[in-house]
């Protein structure tokens, strides 16, 4: 599995170089830095095809903005960003990018099936209703919602709604899945279930996944690389590779390397919040904890 992951890792699907992002007039927002209108500056990011990576960092540091830039929703104010060898907006037009947000944002008057097919029906109405429904149904099955096709959103639990949102993104048949704190509004158990679901989807579909999360556990469990972002100035301060082999499951938590990586990330995150811990100490501490356990 690991070998396969590295083989298909040869080409870079998403690459950003010296990327700067901002909103018009965002200097007026508290929390923006540098006096300019940029939210993010000097970001370098490379995501290999088929990888599952995450962005973690303090609130407001620009994770969602970076994700929006990959989806072509925010244009760079400096540097370059390429998705699948083209511009992000062109990639989005070719339906290479599917996105899932913290809130499922389903249409309350549409069934789970029609919600799952909704974005595809906007993007490619020429496929026809029957074909769109067929694909939507396929992806509802993939996220474990077989039998719930006809249900309205208000008849679904939070976790099920988020599954529909994932199915909606997958129904576009994108190469890239962007997930912005997708499980942030769910309870702990549902969250963990959704993590395993995401692992399963990733293993089955070989999508390239970029996951924004606040949960270190989630990042370590799911991802091969974790990009730690820092505020003031907003940038990527560290890239941590998770040395756990795939496939991963609930037993991955028991692996010593899991806890070690977790400790390293915690230290980096504290640093990104402006607390002056030397990241180097984290590794030693992780080792010490392991010894004590």
């Amino acid at each position: 599995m690991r070998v396969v992951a590295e083989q298909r890792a040869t080409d870079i699907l998403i690459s950003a170089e010296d990327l700067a992002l901002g909103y018009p007039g965002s200097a007026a927002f508290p929390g923006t830095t540098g006096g300019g209108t940029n939210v993010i500056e000097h970001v370098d990011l490379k995501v290999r095809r088929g990888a599952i990576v995450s962005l973690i960092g303090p609130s407001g540091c620009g994770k969602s903005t970076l994700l929006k830039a990959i989806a072509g929703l925010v244009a760079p104010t400096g540097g370059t960003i390429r998705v699948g060898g083209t511009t992000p907006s062109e990639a989005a037009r070719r339906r290479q990018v599917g996105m899932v947000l913290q809130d499922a944002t389903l249409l309350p008057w549409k069934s789970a099936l029609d919600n799952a097919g909704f974005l595809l029906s906007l993007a490619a109405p020429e496929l026809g209703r029957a074909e769109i429904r067929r694909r939507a149904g396929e992806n509802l099955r993939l996220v474990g919602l077989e039998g719930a096709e006809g249900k309205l959103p208000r008849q679904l639990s939070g976790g099920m709604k988020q599954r529909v949102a994932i199915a909606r993104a997958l129904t576009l048949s994108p190469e890239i899945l962007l997930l912005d704190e997708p499980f942030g509004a769910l309870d702990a158990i549902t969250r963990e279930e959704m993590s395993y679901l995401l692992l399963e989807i990733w293993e089955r579909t070989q999508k390239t996944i970029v996951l924004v999360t606040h949960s270190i556990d989630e990042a370590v469990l799911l991802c091969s690389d974790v990009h730690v972002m820092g505020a003031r100035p907003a940038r990527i301060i560290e890239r941590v590779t998770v040395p756990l082999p795939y496939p991963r499951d609930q037993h991955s938590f028991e692996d010593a390397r899991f806890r070690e990586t977790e400790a390293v990330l915690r230290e980096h995150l504290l640093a990104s919040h402006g607390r002056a811990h030397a990241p180097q100490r984290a590794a030693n501490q992780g080792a010490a904890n392991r010894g004590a356990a």
Partner: protein
Amino acid sequence: MSRPAQFRFLDAAPSLILGVILIGLWEAAIHLLDVNAFVVPAPSSIAISLVQNAALLAEATLVTAKEVLVGFVLATLCGAALALLIVRFRMLGRALYPIIVLFQTVPKVALAPIFILWFGYDLSPKVMLIVVIAFFPVTLDMLAGLQSVDPGLVALMRSVSARDNDILLRVRIPNALPHLMAGMKIAITLSVIGAIVGEFAGASAGLGYTIQFASTQLDTPMVFAALVVVSVVGVAFYYLIELLERAVTPWAPKFDPAHQH
């Protein structure tokens, strides 16, 4: 879950009991204090007047109900169309909206005599008055509905290069329907007021006209009888809108004061 639309006796029971008690107290007070029916009629004399003038009141009801219905439908159409224009054409919206809000500060009841002057004594001045009085809540609620689409969802749609028209037709308008229904419920009660005021200002038929005519005759029981009919008409229209709401937006949560959590 969607609730059955039919009348539920148990839900209505508290109001019914309270209503009967209040009417009983009213009746007793009139007799005990020996109030003249021409000042305040007892419920029993109102009932008698209702029966005696049934044919006349029925005729007046038809006239007023027609005014309310035509005026309300036009007010709803104008109100909703205005909201759509404001949302779809931003520049126009920016120009229109302050003017509409400003217009709200005009006491529109005062326009009734002018409409009579312009349009005469029959249906059209009442309809105009109703439109002017009742379109605003429809516009406001419809606007809120059109604009309350989750920005995240809009971003998702934009990411697959959906056009503004698609977003309007497939998301904003359906999303606005429950809001529109709420605005229509306010508009229907305002429409009844508009019709009555319009008839006060100048009419030869209708419940408002009947109220005015009966009061010049010092027939207070008849005034109250006509008022009762006006309320019944108002309530009937209101529940028609509720039925429409259940039919059009079965997915939307309903506010039901009888079943608060």
